């Protein structure tokens, strides 16, 4: 999938995304980094069509994203957020089968098989009949990754999927993500875990105050060209 942002801006009370141009074509794991409040989550919401830009265009496979083709685009992507976002009244398994059965209209048996398979890939088979409140934060987050994968997305967008987790659970979730990348899923993700970015990303976008300040291969972490990225990396302490 070709995703291309052209002169995209978005304001709330103030300008949050400031005239961003970005081409994600050809990368398998794009990391968006930057300090808190610089607009990473907003950029991700724009890229996933959850919000529309005030100015500029988002072009997917050579077609501008608009209300009429939004559903088709969102059918082909997955999202995972900081908080797990699972439906609290459904078990981990039901959270996935609901989407497959009722929205994607898969036959019941097929939906269940597929859901169990996905949960198994994320080592959750023994937890699948519990509701989100009764599993750990890491398990819930992995289940929401499984749900994001259920619709066979070409790209999965993740916004700090481990921000709410302690280091052990963070490692557990990130290891699963690495496993998925090896299976061929593409990712665009926001994270504060710089060591993970080094290990996982093949393209890095560093943002500050709504603008992209540096972008490129993981090399830019070793050779920051700007003072701002240098400072950011020092502050992250790794």
């Amino acid at each position, binding site marked *: 999938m070709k995703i291309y942002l052209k002169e995209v801006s978005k304001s709330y009370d103030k300008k949050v995304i400031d005239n961003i141009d970005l081409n994600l074509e050809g990368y398998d794991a794009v990391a968006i980094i930057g300090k808190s409040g610089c607009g990473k989550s907003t950029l991700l919401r724009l890229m996933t069509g959850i919000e529309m830009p005030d100015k500029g265009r988002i072009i997917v496979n050579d077609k501008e994203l608009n209300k009429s083709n939004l559903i088709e685009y969102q059918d082909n992507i997955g999202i995972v957020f900081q908080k797990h976002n699972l439906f*609290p*009244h459904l078990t981990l398994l039901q959270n996935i089968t609901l989407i497959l059965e009722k*929205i994607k209209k898969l036959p019941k048996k097929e939906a269940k098989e597929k859901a169990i398979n996905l949960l198994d890939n994320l080592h959750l088979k023994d937890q699948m009949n519990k509701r989100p409140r009764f599993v750990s934060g890491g398990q819930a987050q992995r289940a929401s990754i499984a749900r994001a994968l259920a619709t066979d997305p070409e790209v999965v967008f993740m916004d700090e999927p481990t921000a709410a987790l302690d280091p052990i659970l963070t490692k557990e979730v990130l290891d699963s993500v690495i496993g998925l990348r090896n299976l061929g899923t593409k990712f665009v993700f926001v994270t504060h875990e710089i060591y993970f970015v080094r290990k996982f990303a093949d393209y890095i976008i560093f943002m500050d105050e709504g603008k992209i300040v540096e972008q490129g291969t993981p090399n830019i972490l070793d050779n920051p060209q700007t003072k701002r990225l240098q400072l950011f990396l020092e502050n992250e302490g790794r």
Partner: protein
Amino acid sequence: MKKFKLVQIVLAFLLYIFLFVFIINEVADVLDFTFLIENKSMLINGAMLTIGMSIASFISSTIVGFIIFLMTESKIVFLKTIANIYKEIIMGTPLLVLVFVVVYIIGVAIGIRNKMMLGFLSLTFYMSPYMTNVFEGAYKSIDSSQFMVMDFYGFNLYQRYRYIILPQMIRPIIPGLINNLSGIIKGTSILSTIAISEIFYATSILSNKSYRYIEGYFVLWMVYLIITIPLSRLAKYLSRQENY
């Protein structure tokens, strides 16, 4: 510490019992409940009517309240406005006034004369906005991130309510519904003004005949409390239970 707490609770109860006994003693020398016992079938029928009327109005006001709730959550401004006007009008009207409006204006206009039916309609109108409030409260307790997920996967309106919203509303509405049931039971006493022989009306008649108002209204008061206090305790208990 725990023991001390218990002592305080017992003391609080004793204070109330003392007040009851004191007041009753002040107003009456001899209490005579025989007239109530002699006419107990009339009282039981009254109580039955109160309960029956309450349950019927509870069911109908829940249904009407739910429809009004759906309208207030609708994206169609016309429906939303109709629902909001309805809520404002009814919630601004005292039940006693509403009963007379229903009997002398609405009832006449639509040609209903049956006073039971008119009483039932009054209570239904009166309680339905409070039922709507209960539904709205439960709806608001659903985290906004879930709506984002539903948008993302393209849930339609039916799928939203059927699979996500309503199942999560059931538990949080129960305490509110119980409290409203209690409100309806108390509200039925107003129907005595249109001579519906529920328990309040029955007791008034008996007290009038025997001139034993103190005993009559005291027993009546106790009957209401025996029903409403357990309901309110149950609602409190259920609202403490965690929702998912």
